[in-house]
């Protein structure tokens, strides 16, 4: 009997011993990890006790701000007065789902921790005053952003407008959009319900189509094919007799023209008419790898340096370029080539800026609560895509597109506009994507615009970049002319 009770005692001793060790572990060794854990409400509460700094547009409109709440626990509530208009740029600041876009990248500045504290912030922290965050000023022009959103309307797609000389992102619109306020509240259940509805929406409203989604660029890629030819000894006078189709070597799949038209001639005529067979044949005349190199020079293959998340655009692969059939398809922006609207806007901006692509700039500066600039980002060069004379030739070619080609819908009276349409085939049975890239004025560029409408918007398979997207780009450029006065 004593043996049994001793064993029971021993079991008890072991159980309590294990509990003892584990308790020391949790309370002392693991304490730091627990204290800094994001699930630790105290970390969250501390952050919500800060008067998080606002996000402003380039023309000083408030895009995001924190307002005082009457509650003790979550002192500030994040709201987005512009609703869905800036959602993909500002991102959200959610109690449950964390942060995204500028709210995430500039979090430490917005909470007042980035870049060292000012004396005011330090004393607030020490004396227990309300900690005040810094202000983030974007380059987005509020009026232009709204004009772009309005021009895009209910189409699924994106508009990106850049200042070619500075790289400033003047507008970045993705549609459909969402209201970040709905998921940035203080009621976790309401936020979760809104979040789930957004996630379940087949229109993917939280996807930033402007920078985080690639599409086959279609004929807009012919600008890059032309740039590759011009740098490899095939000038604007390179002519091919007009044909209805072109059959590259080693294949029985011919390249056809849009609507089975017959076209050809020199490069000017070919680009004006967006002639598929011409550029397909032109690309097969290029040295191996030349097309990929030019695309890379324009930024394909790497994510442009941007303050919010973006993805790289896809180059024709080396394997693709070994087969004449795939070279021909790549030359007209099909097969494995894919680009974000941001990338195509950068292509237009690079040609507009004499071949030099400026780094896309989304945030102009950060100001402390007293209004002093504590961080600023001067314009910088990202890539030299083509030499100035090639850029000049491409500009002339693109002016022809708007003057008398597929892009006439982008004309602005009294202003020279350069552009290129694109109507990209994607999955069979689906309407093509409608593209337009452009800049204006062509002789002294102020703005470069890329427009993408997914699956032809409501024009269905009849959609072409020229009919659907060119007018949207035109409206954005006209709006910019009025807003910024050029």
């Amino acid at each position, binding site marked *: 009997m004593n043996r049994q009770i001793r064993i*029971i*005692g021993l079991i*008890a001793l072991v159980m309590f011993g294990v509990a003892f060790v584990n308790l020391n572990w949790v309370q002392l060794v693991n304490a730091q990890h627990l204290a800094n854990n994001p*699930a*630790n*409400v105290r970390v969250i509460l501390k952050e919500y006790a800060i008067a998080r700094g606002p996000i402003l547009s380039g023309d000083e409109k408030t895009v995001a701000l924190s307002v005082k709440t009457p509650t003790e626990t979550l002192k500030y509530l994040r709201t987005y007065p512009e609703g869905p208009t800036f959602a993909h740029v500002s991102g959200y600041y959610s109690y449950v789902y964390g942060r995204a876009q500028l709210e995430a990248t500039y979090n430490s500045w917005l909470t007042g921790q980035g870049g060292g504290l000012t004396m005011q912030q330090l004393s607030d922290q020490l004396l227990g005053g309300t900690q005040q965050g810094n202000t983030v000023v974007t380059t987005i022009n509020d009026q232009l952003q709204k004009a772009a959103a309005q021009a895009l309307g209910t189409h699924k797609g994106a508009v990106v407008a850049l200042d070619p000389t500075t790289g400033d992102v003047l507008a970045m619109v993705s549609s459909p959009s969402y209201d970040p306020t709905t998921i940035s509240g203080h009621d976790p259940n309401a936020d979760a319900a809104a979040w789930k509805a957004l996630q379940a929406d087949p229109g993917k409203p939280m996807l930033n189509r402007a920078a985080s989604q690639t599409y086959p660029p279609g004929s807009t890629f012919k600008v890059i094919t032309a740039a590759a030819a011009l740098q490899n000894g095939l000038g604007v006078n390179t002519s091919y007799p007009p044909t209805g189709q072109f059959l590259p070597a080693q294949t029985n799949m011919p390249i056809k023209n849009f609507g089975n038209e017959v076209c050809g001639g020199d490069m000017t005529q070919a680009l004006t008419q967006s002639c598929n067979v011409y550029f397909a044949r032109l690309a097969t005349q290029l040295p191996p790898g030349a097309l990929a190199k030019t695309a890379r020079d324009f930024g394909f293959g790497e994510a442009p340096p941007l303050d919010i998340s973006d993805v790289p655009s896809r180059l024709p692969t080396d394997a693709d370029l070994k087969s004449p059939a795939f070279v021909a398809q790549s030359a007209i922006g099909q097969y494995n080539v894919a680009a974000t609207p941001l990338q195509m806007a950068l292509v237009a901006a690079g040609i507009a800026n004499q071949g030099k692509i400026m780094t896309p700039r989304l945030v102009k500066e950060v100001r402390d609560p007293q209004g002093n600039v504590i961080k600023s980002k001067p314009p910088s060069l990202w890539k030299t895509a083509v030499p100035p004379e090639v850029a000049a030739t491409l500009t002339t070619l693109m002016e022809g597109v708007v003057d008398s080609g597929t892009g006439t819908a982008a004309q602005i009276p009294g202003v020279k506009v350069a552009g290129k349409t694109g109507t990209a085939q994607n999955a069979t049975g689906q309407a093509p994507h409608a593209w337009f890239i452009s800049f204006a004025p062509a002789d002294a560029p102020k703005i470069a615009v890329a427009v993408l409408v997914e699956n032809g918007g409501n024009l269905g398979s009849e959609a072409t970049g020229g009919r659907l997207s060119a007018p949207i780009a035109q409206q954005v450029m006209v709006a910019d002319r009025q807003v910024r006065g050029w």
Partner: protein
Amino acid sequence: MSSDTLAPPATAEHPVSTGLRHGDTFRLMAATSSAMIGMGLVMILSASSVEAFKTYGSSFLFFRKQLVGAAMGLVALLGLSRFDYRRLRKLARPLFWLTLAGLVAALIPGIGVAGGGSSRWLTFGPVTVQPSELAKLALILVSAHVIERKGGFVGDIRELCIPVIPMTALACLLMVAQPDLGTTIITVGAVLTVLYLAGARMRHLGALVSLGSLAAAGLILTQGYQRARFTSYLHPWADPLKGGYQIIQGQIALGSGGWFGVGLGASRQKWSYVPNAHTDFIFAIIGEELGLIGTLLVLAAFGFFCYLGIRIAREAPDRFGFLVAGGITAWIGLQAVINIGAVTGMLPITGVPLPMVSFGGTSLVLTMAAIGILLSIARNGRRG
């Protein structure tokens, strides 16, 4: 045998082999239990004040309820400590049938009261009782009684199986149906201890435990509720806002307590962050407010309680007393470890209260009644 004072009979006032005086076991058990119940009351006041104010508009509501429970428990404790525990043998079977009836009633919709995804309660006017709490004591008493009648030895498998195992299985089945896996495990643990102390073979008990574990594993895998609890035990961080929430918030409370705690009443986690802060997770709030010092003291108190319980069993004058004391000690010790294990993330959450400390009237009254029985055994105990 009857005495008018709480003190043990003068005949026991002789030194025992371990150096403790015989009467000391009685006194130390009484003191340890009182200290823990007192501490429990203080911690319930602290941990429940926010929840009570938010829900009922008075910070003292849970505290007052627990105070009533403690008063009733004290009556039970004092009464039973003076009552000759041997006479409980007559009560063992009726108590068992009463428990079964209560467990069945709790499952019947309309009679039983559900809460937190489980139907565990019965209501009588203003009083709500939890029959599964009674099951632990009833099964210990009935097992010890039946074994004693068999001559106090269950080395034979047939002796072992009839009738203790079916009785326990029946009660456990009803508790699993609620579901209340935690109380089931504790009940099984206590009965197994009684059987082991009565001389059951390790291999027999091993086979029973394997069978029971298999059944438990089957239960965990087939029932979404149990499986979710087990998954969040293994990976609390996989879903920190849902399944893993309680585990994580409990650990955050413990972790922020550090060595000395944030101070009594100063917990932040009790502000609606740790669910069940005053019941199953009161240990987390003790850790936050009183630090490692506080939690280790509680742990040490339970360890000491078990030590005293084992001493009482060893010194018990008869086999029934020996088995009952062993069973009660195993119950309270196991329940403490399972509760603390769940709060520290060592064991899955099964929703059992910390004995003597957690909020819960039925639990407190019955635990104090069990302590009364322990004291009665101690009072009649022979010298070691």
